[in-house]
């Protein structure tokens, strides 16, 4: 393959970025993408989700202003924050790829973008449900929601590029460029859409933790953020390892195909 086998691409380098355990060499490797680090992360996420459900749906009081609808925001705010984190990871991976040219960073960028798109879809879904209760309609041209939708489409384009068959190096370079252009577009789109709706600005509660929140509400908001960041980390590691394995499997498939062709050729020549 065309990728250079730099040492940074070895799978044993993983934990330097995801904070794992020291290498446990020897013994059978797992027939899955999980490891001790991901199992711990997964367990923490599950406990976090359980606590979040208890706090978000039962313990916290309804908001003075938003009423019960604040409970949707306990889902909406963390998903959008985690999505932005995911796209920043994609951008970092893209820059690092163009710099180091290592398969590792390319696959990190790709994996992170896919998770970010999922979280953005959930953000839009939750925002629409919130709007249905609050405004009586699923959609209003609220700036935050509009921006999210534009960026969602931008990153769908990124994922579509990654699915085009091309050489590993071309795909990685093109994706890295798009990952960088897309992240730069985030603040510009934000500003433009804000001004666009500026004349009839409604009080917006999307996308941020309300500074006036207090007590259990504030705690729940940050708990939600923590839980979704843990989920993001868990998903990112698994998705990265899956991408890594897919590349290896494809290489092997290619090698096997070439070997088969060679064998055929040899047979034809031999008699």
């Amino acid at each position, binding site marked *: 393959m065309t990728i250079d086998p730099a040492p940074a691409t070895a799978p044993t380098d993983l934990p330097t970025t995801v904070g794992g355990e020291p290498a446990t060499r020897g013994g059978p*490797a797992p*027939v899955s*993408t999980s*490891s001790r680090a991901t199992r711990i992360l997964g367990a923490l996420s599950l406990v976090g989700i359980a606590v979040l459900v208890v706090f978000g749906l039962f313990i916290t009081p309804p908001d003075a202003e938003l009423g*019960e609808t604040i409970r949707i925001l306990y*889902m909406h705010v963390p998903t959008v924050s985690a999505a932005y984190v995911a796209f920043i990871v994609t951008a970092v991976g893209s820059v690092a790829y163009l710099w180091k040219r290592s398969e590792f960073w390319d696959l990190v960028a790709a994996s992170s973008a896919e998770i970010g798109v999922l979280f953005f879809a959930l953000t839009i879904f939750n925002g629409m449900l919130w709007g249905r209760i609050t405004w009586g309609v699923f959609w209003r041209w609220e700036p935050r929601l509009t921006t999210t939708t534009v960026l969602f489409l931008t990153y769908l384009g990124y994922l579509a590029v990654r699915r085009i068959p091309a050489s590993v190096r071309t795909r990685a370079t093109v994706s890295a460029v798009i990952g960088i252009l897309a992240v730069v577009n985030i603040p510009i789109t934000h500003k433009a859409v804000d001004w666009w709706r500026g004349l009839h600005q409604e009080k917006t509660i999307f996308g941020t933790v309300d500074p006036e929140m207090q007590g259990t509400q504030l705690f729940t908001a940050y708990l939600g953020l923590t839980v979704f960041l843990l989920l993001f980390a868990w998903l990112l590691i698994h*998705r990265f390892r899956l991408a890594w394995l897919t590349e*290896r*499997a494809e290489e092997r*498939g290619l090698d096997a195909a070439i070997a088969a062709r060679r064998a055929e050729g040899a047979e034809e020549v031999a008699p």
Partner: protein
Amino acid sequence: MSTTGYIAAAWIGTFASVGAYALWIVRRGRRASALVPEEERRWM
């Protein structure tokens, strides 16, 4: 649908989607693992 219904839809929809996605990548990971030799998947 009542307010409670929408809130339930938001929470269930969110966690069900993340759960389905997680399940999907884990299962694909298992399948891909079987195709790759051990030394390529020595996670930490």
